[in-house]
């Protein structure tokens, strides 16, 4: 079972299946991207109410992770589509709250706060 809660030096945290507490910022992103592993993704998804990720979701998570490690940034929309072979509509449907609101967070990418 995944636990989340406040922490003294982080906005909140998530506990992975192996019992590791991972600090998160106020928006639920990993504070240290090196804390990421697939267990972290599972824990973050469970905290969002998703018990098990589909293979299609894992493919997107792995693409985001690989792209970030290679390029140092999240992919633009057209790179995301080209890299996954999916339309934005398909990607939006695949993740609760939409692709941008969820997948980068589950993939352990840094929080890129866009201007609203």
């Amino acid at each position, binding site marked *: 079972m995944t636990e989340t809660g406040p922490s003294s030096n982080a906005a909140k945290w998530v506990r992975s299946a192996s019992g590791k507490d991972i600090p998160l910022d106020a928006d639920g992103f990993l504070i240290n991207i090196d804390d990421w592993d697939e267990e972290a993704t599972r824990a973050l998804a469970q905290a969002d109410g998703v018990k098990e990720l589909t293979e299609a979701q894992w493919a997107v998570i792995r693409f985001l992770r690989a792209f970030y490690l290679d390029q140092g940034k999240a992919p633009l929309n*057209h790179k995301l589509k080209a890299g996954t072979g999916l339309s*934005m*509509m398909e*990607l939006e449907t695949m993740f609760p709250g939409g692709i941008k609101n969820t997948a980068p967070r589950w993939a352990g990418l840094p929080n890129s706060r866009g201007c609203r």
Partner: protein
Amino acid sequence: MTASPLIYLDNAATTFPKPRDILTEMVEIYAERGVSPGRGGYDLSVEADELVFEVRRQTARFFGSRLAEKVIFASNATDALNLVLQGLLESGDHVVSSRLEHNSVLRPLHHLVRKGMIDLDLVSFDGQGFIDPDEVARAIRPRTRCVVLTQASNVLGTIQPVAEVGRICQERGAPLIVDAAQSAGNVPMDMTAWGISAVAFTGHKSLMAPAGIGGLVLSPDLEVRPTRFGGTGVDSLSLEHTSSYPHRLEAGTINLLGVIGLGAALRRLEREEVRDAFRLEMELTRRLRDGLADIDRVRLYAADHLDDRHLALLTFNIHDLDPSIVGDILDGDFNIACRVGLHCAPLVHESLGTSPLGGVRFSLGPFNTEEQIDAALAAVAHIARWASSA
């Protein structure tokens, strides 16, 4: 699949593309005369200073001011608003503004409220996105130091009755400061006739100048303290900052390249076909409004009357769909660029009931076509159908 050509509907953020003739003129003149204006006695420096002063004259004429010396160049409207608000307000002052304002007004004022310096009253707007001048009149107190009002909402596109508010402000002795960031270039301004004490503007929106140049135009009787200090090329022996305008409010070398662009942009606006372009933008906006209104689950805001009190922009939502998702789909699947979210105007969305997610804004420019509007409508209809089936 071949990507379709970009449909740019984010002209309220910045117009794009900029006219090639303006960019060409900037490069050519800057290549020939890009020296420090007025800082040296050599001919080229004097010529550059004359060029800058001519753009001050153009700017003064454009906004209906008679005093080129009180045209202050700044980076943008936000910079100009900070200049005037921080240089005008003092401890104990009261300010009247509105819930339609952009953060360029709200944040500098909120900063002064938080410091305990000023009291602030914000007037509301009606269901069609207009403030009531009588409400402004009722909010003015004996210690009201100024009224700050946008000429046009960047979220709703509604053009505010600044002339009427100007008359009230003159009667009550409270200077009116107008944020013309969104309106300059599309909406006329006559600050002398309308009793406006200061206008803050930016070049990169409907004026079609590049980003990085804007300014503040002050009426002859409004005095603003300098809040930035440094070299002006004038009275260099004195350690006191120059007291005469425009140098009083300009510290350091100005953005000559941007000033050249602003001058070219203001000259371009004098051409008849350019003035006609806004009428065409409004025709397309009405087509867009009618099309959006026909799509199930689309909700438009303050778009009932697209007359001469409205800019060429519309804000809407598709039922309860997060506007950021709509924006990503428009960009990724339809190659349509638009602005989603709160548009840096949080109180507008709070009043509309669309906070914290905001809305989707389509803002048109002179290069948009009927085909593009129809394509945008088809895209929104497609997303609305997808949302209803998801």
